[in-house]
């Protein structure tokens, strides 16, 4: 539930690194450019040099095995600066799909280039309007893989795509495809939070050009990877929520109206106190979920659903309140508050809304 000394040091290092190397201005600059560039390549190289690609990887695969609480701490610090990078999409999601779903030889073949930063990968999972990981209309067939994948995070900059599709047997599978394949058409997009994702059109990728992951625990492994990424996204959202609450409390402590600091008004104090309660409550659910990953606990899916639903609700509340409490300034581009607002709504759609997770939680608990 808490960080050990080693992990605390890592958190401080990463916090300082992001503060110096990834201020929110950089994200704004990125947003002015082409959506084909979803993150700053130099920043990413520096993150690789810090060792962040191997942070969650077991030692048997040459990783640092720092523990999921540590990965959560990095995600939180990234969240504080709204950092755009392949940390969640490649390091957390794609690498763990490979580790959890691939065979040993597949892991040994593909993981090293991801760890070294030579390549990045994305998982092509979503298809419909809403997150629904159990359903796909793309299947193995004689005419090759055909269909459209959406919300592929940083897909426009990825070398490898892990595409979730149905095997001929009717079960879910994961197809490893090169993003430069002639029948893979990638449309780069940027969402309103200035982060990048892609729409990936598979136009008959023949079986010869596909490597199906064939680890022993493929289906369980896919669910596990999704749960891991859901929890880490929740951790990132908590970092953003904490940052925007702190900015709001600071602002109320400076801004004067009616000859007093706004922060002296009890109505506003109570709203901030409520937000802080929600923040630490959700943070506790996220810490418990990260700890669940560290202990490989049973019931991680329920922990993941709790963490994401509480993070969604909390970040939605705090970012909305932050805009309101910043008054007129809250709706201007002069401040970054609006970016936190937009980021929260984008995150809500990624890896499941609160509606999705409450339903999944209820089912897992027998109602």
């Amino acid at each position: 539930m808490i960080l050990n000394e080693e992990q605390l040091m890592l958190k401080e290092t990463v916090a300082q690194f992001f503060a110096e190397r990834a201020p929110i201005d950089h994200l704004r600059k990125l947003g002015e450019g082409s959506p084909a560039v979803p993150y700053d390549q130099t920043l990413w190289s520096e993150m690789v040099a810090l060792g962040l690609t191997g942070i969650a990887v077991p030692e048997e695969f040459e990783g640092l095995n720092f523990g999921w609480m540590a990965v959560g701490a990095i995600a939180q610090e990234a969240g504080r600066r709204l950092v755009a990078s392949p940390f969640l999409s490649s390091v957390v999601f794609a690498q763990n799909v490979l580790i959890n779903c691939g065979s040993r030889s597949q892991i040994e073949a593909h993981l090293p280039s991801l760890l070294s930063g030579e390549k990045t990968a994305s998982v092509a999972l979503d298809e419909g309007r809403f997150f629904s990981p159990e359903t796909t209309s793309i299947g193995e067939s004689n005419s090759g893989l055909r269909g459209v994948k959406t919300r592929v995070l940083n897909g426009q900059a990825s070398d490898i795509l892990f595409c979730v599709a149905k095997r001929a047997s009717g079960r879910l599978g994961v197809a490893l495809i090169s993003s430069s394949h002639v029948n893979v058409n990638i449309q780069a997009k940027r969402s309103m939070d200035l982060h990048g994702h892609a729409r990936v059109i598979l136009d008959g990728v023949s079986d010869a050009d596909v490597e199906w992951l064939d680890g022993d625990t493929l289906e369980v492994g896919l669910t596990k990877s999704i749960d891991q990424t859901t929890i880490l996204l929740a951790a990132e959202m908590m970092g953003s929520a904490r940052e925007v609450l702190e900015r709001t409390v600071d602002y109320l402590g400076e801004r004067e109206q009616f000859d007093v600091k706004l922060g002296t008004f009890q109505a506003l104090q109570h709203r901030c106190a409520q937000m802080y309660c929600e923040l630490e409550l959700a943070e506790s659910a996220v810490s418990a979920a990260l700890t669940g990953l560290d202990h490989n606990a049973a019931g991680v899916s329920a922990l993941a659903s709790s963490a994401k639903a509480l993070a969604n609700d909390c970040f939605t509340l705090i970012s909305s309140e932050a805009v309101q409490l910043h008054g007129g300034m809250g709706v201007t581009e002069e401040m970054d508050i609006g970016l936190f607002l937009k980021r929260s709504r984008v995150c809500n759609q990624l890896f499941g809304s609160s509606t999705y997770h409450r339903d999944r939680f209820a089912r897992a608990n027998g109602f």
Partner: protein
Amino acid sequence: MSNEELDQFRAETTAWLTANCPPSQRQPIVREEQIWGGRRRVFPSKDAQKWFEACRDKGYTAPEWPSEYGGGGLSPAQAKVLQQEMTKMGCRPPLYCQGLWMLGPALLVYGNEPQKREHLTAICRGEIRWAQGYSEPSAGSDLANLKTKAEDRGDHFLVNGTKIWTTKADEADWIFCLVRTSDSTPKQAGISFLLIDMATEGVSTSPIPLISGESEFCQTFFDNVKVPKSNLVGELNGGWAVAKELLKHERKMMAAFDGMLEKPAMELLELAHYAVGVDDSGALADGELRADMARHLMREKAMGQLGERIYWQGKAKQADHRLPLLMKHLGTSEAQTKDELILRALGDEGVSMDDPSISEGLRKMVKQWAFNKALTIAGGTSEVQLNIIAKRALGMPSAEAKS
């Protein structure tokens, strides 16, 4: 104490509990069978009396208090072992008493030797039942505004005034009170902490009917009551410090109260299945109730996880002093959310507290719903909690400090 010694203590404890706690006292507690002690104490059964007396003689009604005052003299580690083994066996708490939870811990810090000897012993032997006299009709959240006066009359104090929300004072023997002994400012500086025998002439108590149909709380009146000066705890006009020490324990007690209360006839999930039913897919038939229940259960679980975080932080000497400030507000409001879900699920069976055609267990739930409206009021209202969080956790400026 070494691990081996602690293991041995555990083995001894298990053996002692097995020998002394009758099977009937290992059943979940029901309210009517709680043992509150006091001059007028009654035991619901021979077994209950046997269990109480065994604990009393061993000092296990107050395991961590020094044995010279009737406690068990256990170290915190030993007390934890005892608690764990009692929980494992399902042993009922041997004694319920505000003296045990609140006054005792404060007396250990602020009481003088004769006071400790007299009162601590009587508390853990279950001989004296205590009530708390803090709030007054004009002093609720603004506790320091209390008006009950104790005048110095040489060899005694003369007490006049009234105390409200004195829990079960109609059954108590003694009451610990905050009284005004000086009009100096700030108001907190004129308050003293006084112990009053309720059998003294001039003390009277009347129960207050509550919206739950019960009258747990009373109002107590003091009309020219003579109180010996030896009953002053701590310094004259130094009562606020004692009160703060005691409130700390009240909050801790409210947090730990869970296992000591009667369990409801059905847990929320079971109740929802019973009352609402499921659709073809096995989901609760009321989709909105289902989603709200999931939300509540997640938050309830997160409350426990917040508690765990605080625990582990403390152990690792990384304590974040802000987190404990959130527990009361979050915990009590979530408890009320649960009550509202219960009432929604009950439907037509949730509209009466006394209709005999509805089972007693369900009616108790409805009463609990009404009673629990006090949770966000007693022991520091939610509004006061939010004030504290804003100031102490978030460092927001107070109104007096105008730019």
